[in-house]
């Protein structure tokens, strides 16, 4: 319990503290410190939950089970490594783009604020608060996206703000409808928004209302997941914001949005007793998967390209969750993990690469391996990993998704296969020249901190070779929670 409250409190403290001292020279270190303690807390929390099983806070505002506790830990971990990376990176950015130090105050404060909103969204038991937290995540990051104040940055931020705001508003309408359906069967108004109550009562909720509600929720949270055709904000926001931001947006925010979607799908499924929700998710997932794959081919901005790859992978997860079934769900959970690890690692590397080349334009980045081998290899290996080559974990999850599809929807494997090939080609035809070949003289090495990258990639490698026991149990508990049974 204390662990939970600490997990939520620390970032708030951090936010407030940084609002005052965020501009100091050592703020970066302090940020790392906060992230580290937070990670420790989350591990403690996870330990407790794994030990004693699901945990419902006395005031019933928080509910922790296997599904969200592992996301909390993942979030804390990626937050930590990103903080480690962002310290030297932002320092370099400050002198490179001569941002004022007060920007760093904003940056650090918002970093912590963002972490808070995500912890809140993950741990809350109240779908109303879930919505508030999701909206809060948007508000926390929108100023970071426009941190550089360039026209593009402002434009990206504005689109991010408006599109996500409108989208999330739909989600609120969905929530209202859900509440409307719930309060007719659940006596007290307070409980009518509590997930565990709703989940247990799901059977008696009114299907027609929930269908409507689900449509609004899907469009709403789907916007934040970045599902085509509500994805348009995503590449802009990812490519124009500071790289650590892109790393946590891609690695965490999308996960959290998908988490919300899955939580609500569980309720809707319980009520509808048919697979409508699943089918919708599969359709959106597949569409996003294919479209993003094609978009990869036409990119000129490296961060933009990788954000499209994020869309692609979120599409795959959505597809897998929609397909349901233990195997697919297990695969989707695993994919969540490996994707956020790999993708954040890639964004870290990309940040360094962009600093080395002094630009994000793909045509101008050349021969990274030559200029700075560590970064070059990092980018290459990261891309190999995200493209789904073993022995990296992404392969494992894609393997499971594909075989699960083969079992239940044999013919859908064809578009999946084509999509994988197209996306792969799109990714590599851009990464290849950036990594290989002769480097232009303009590129000069920077002080890169590749520790987070190596850490992430090693973890992903580990997951690809063998999923450790405790993690496996963890996943299987979560799978049992979502899909009823687990492949283990």
């Amino acid at each position, binding site marked *: 319990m204390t662990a939970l409250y600490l997990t939520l409190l620390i970032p708030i403290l951090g936010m407030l503290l940084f609002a005052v001292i965020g501009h100091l020279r050592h703020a970066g270190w302090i940020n790392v410190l906060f992230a580290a303690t937070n990670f420790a807390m989350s591990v403690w929390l996870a330990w407790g939950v794994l030990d004693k099983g699901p945990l419902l806070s006395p005031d019933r505002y928080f509910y922790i089970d296997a599904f969200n506790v592992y996301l909390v830990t993942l979030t804390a971990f990626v937050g930590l490594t990103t903080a480690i990376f962002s310290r030297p990176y932002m320092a370099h950015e400050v002198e490179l783009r001569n941002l004022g130090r007060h920007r760093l105050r904003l940056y650090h404060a918002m970093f912590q604020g963002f972490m808070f909103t995500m912890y809140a969204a993950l741990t809350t038991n109240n779908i109303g608060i879930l919505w508030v937290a999701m909206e809060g995540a948007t508000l926390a990051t929108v100023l970071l996206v426009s941190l550089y104040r360039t026209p593009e940055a402002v434009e990206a931020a*504005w*689109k991010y703000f*408006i*599109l996500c705001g*409108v989208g999330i508003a*739909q989600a609120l309408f969905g929530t209202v409808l859900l509440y409307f359906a719930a309060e007719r069967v659940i006596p007290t108004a307070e409980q009518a928004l509590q997930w565990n109550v709703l989940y247990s009562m799901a059977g008696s909720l009114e299907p027609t209302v929930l*269908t*409507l509600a689900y*449509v*609004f929720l899907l*469009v709403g949270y789907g*916007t934040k997941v970045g599902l*085509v*055709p509500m994805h*348009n904000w995503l*590449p802009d926001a990812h490519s124009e914001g500071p790289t650590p931001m892109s790393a946590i947006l891609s690695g965490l925010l999308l996960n959290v949005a998908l988490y919300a979607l899955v939580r609500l799908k569980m309720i809707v499924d319980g009520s509808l007793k048919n697979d*409508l929700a699943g089918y*919708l998710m599969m359709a959106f997932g597949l569409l996003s998967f294919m479209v993003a794959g*094609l*978009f990869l*081919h*036409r990119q000129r901005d490296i961060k933009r390209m990788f954000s499209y790859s994020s869309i692609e992978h979120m599409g795959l997860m959505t597809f897998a969750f929609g397909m349901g079934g233990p195997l697919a769900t297990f695969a989707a959970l695993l994919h969540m993990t490996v994707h956020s690890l790999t993708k954040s690692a890639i964004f870290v590397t990309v940040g360094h690469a962009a600093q080395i080349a002094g630009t994000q334009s793909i045509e101008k980045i050349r*021969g990274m*391996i*030559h200029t700075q*081998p560590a970064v070059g290899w990092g980018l290459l290996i990261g891309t*190999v990993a995200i493209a789904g*080559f*073993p*022995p990296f974990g992404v*392969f494992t999850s894609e*393997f*499971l998704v*594909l*075989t699960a599809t*083969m*079992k239940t929807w*044999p013919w859908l*494997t064809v578009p999946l*296969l084509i999509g*994988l*090939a*197209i996306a*792969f*080609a799109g990714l*590599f*035809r851009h990464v*290849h020249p950036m990594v*290989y*070949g002769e*480097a232009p003289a303009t590129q000069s090495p920077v002080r890169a901190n590749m520790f987070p990258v190596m850490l992430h990639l090693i973890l992903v490698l580990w997951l*690809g*070779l063998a*999923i450790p*026991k405790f993690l*496996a149990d963890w*996943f*299987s508990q979560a799978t049992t929670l979502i899909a009823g049974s687990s*492949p*283990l």
Partner: protein
Amino acid sequence: MSPLFATYLALASALLAAVVSLGVTRLPTLLRYASFLLLGLSAASAMYAGMSVLLTSTSVTMELPLGLPWLNWHLRLDALSGFFLVVIGVVVLAVSLYGPAYVRTFVHAKAPQSFTALSVFTALFILGMYLVVLADDAFMFMVAWELMSVASYFLVAYQHQYPANRRAAFLYLLMAHIAGVSILLSFGVLAGAGGGYTFEQMRAADLSVTWASIAFGLAFFGFGMKAGMVPLHAWLPEAHPVAPSHISALMSGVMLKVALYGLIRLVYDLLGEIQWEWGLVMLLVGAISTLLGVLYAMLSNNLKRLLAYSSIENVGIILSALGLSLIFIGNGEQVLGVLGLIAALYHILGHAIFKGLLFLGAGAIARATHEYDLNNMGGLIHRMPRTAVWMLIGCLAIAGLPPLTGFVSEWLTFQVALQAPVLKSGVLRALIPVTAAMLALSAALAAATFVKVFGVAFLGQPRTRNARHAHEVPLGMQLAMGMLAILCVLFGILPSTTIGVIDAVPQLLLETLPPEATTAGWLWLTPMSADVASYSAPLVALALVVVGGLVYLLLRVRAERIRRVYPWECGYGEVNARMQYTATAFAQPIQRIFAPVWDLDEEIVEKRHAKQPQLVESIRYQLQRQDKSWSRLYAPIGMLVLGAARRIGYLQTGSIHTYLAYSFFTLLFLLWVVT
């Protein structure tokens, strides 16, 4: 030493080689030798393990605590994987002899590539191949398979300062990825039916013919793409030449075979009931690959590219043999099926050896002359005599000439094909001999091709300074080539003994032994029975040597010493290097006969004399050839994808109103759908 221990030793030392190589930049010389020593060790133990299971025809299974939580890595060492372990081991052993001297050129290279990458990924590549043949569940198989692909991709991209190499690497990885996915799906079908990923469960599965055929189709596509069958071969002639030569030897000599291993394992072992239609498909594709492969090879002037194309040809031969075997099995002629399988296995072994030899030879030439283009070589037999001998043996073997190893498998294949009359279906009976004729044609063309290779590279006069100043390569490299060359001869002369070992494989897969292939003793090879066909390689070889020797001695008795003079030059000055036939010229008749096979762009530029236009001052002849699969198949697909990418761009108009409209109408659409 138990086979199990030997296997682990092989894997461990390969892995260790990779680890050791990480530090290679610190102390290059030592670790270079160390890593190649470890590779040699792994090769030796792999061969030991393979031989021991082949001879005892037992099978060992093991599990590693890796993989999925509910599915450890299952390894299985049986006759089939044992055979392939031997095949891999032979070439790897040669490479580990060859490597230290060869890669020295890369250590101090100014080029951007890092020597560490080369040694690490070489070791991983080899490790991957071991694991593929040992895998006993789909997941581990795929992991090992892709490990092999990715490692070799890094090796292809190794000298990435050349755009051609980057292009090749990209193409290779892309096609490897597609192949991998399609194989994965084929396993998916089997797993779906068998209820699990282990090969045990897949064997147990009983598929409907339709699903089995789908699985076969997917696997054939995937493995075939990796094995380089036409028209899925585009990556091969790009990727194999640009890798360092010892890697090319591994890729062409072994990796393609590993792909064929996958095919054999899946079709003969996992897929259950064999349909003869599969065999027919395989036979036709194989025959076409054979012919086109050798024709493309004939017209290539880059030595390594030529060798790569000839690999396509040989894969075609192997596929044809497998196809025949499947056809006969599908028609209930188990025995003939076994013979076809043996022919295929024999060619797999043989091709691994002589293609490895030839690539190593090409590497030796490259090291001595820095040339890959045949037209820049010539007269090397004088500069590098021993390499010349080994290469000559390699050329003879790959041309399928008796009494070397290439001929044996060809002979067996023909013998099987000649049994066509036992089949019921008239179509097959008519078709098989025709494909046999195609094989014969390709064999003859292969001979022509390798006359071109040896003749242009080693004979005649040096065409460039580099060729003139070539030097014999160091001992290690010669040892490697010599070893393989001697094996070419041995396997050519002792087919019965070899088959006696190999037939543990059909015994495992089909529970049938070849009837009396080896009954007549080591001297005689009688596939069906003595009066149907027999071939005694030892005697033939003996006769050749004896007759030749006798004649030589007879003439030596009263022969004066030979006088050496200038060659006859028709009265124009001295014979110079530019007078001799070039590789292009040599291939020209064939090119004219089979012109439709290529996209040819031929032009003759005449420069007239300024004052008297009837005088031709100079004539330049230019020829661009590329195989048709590009313009017909690959370019269109690529354009299709890019066209789609161009159109899709209009989703991202940049106008926020449009974006809002998207989500607005999505919402309305969904609401309309659900109500």
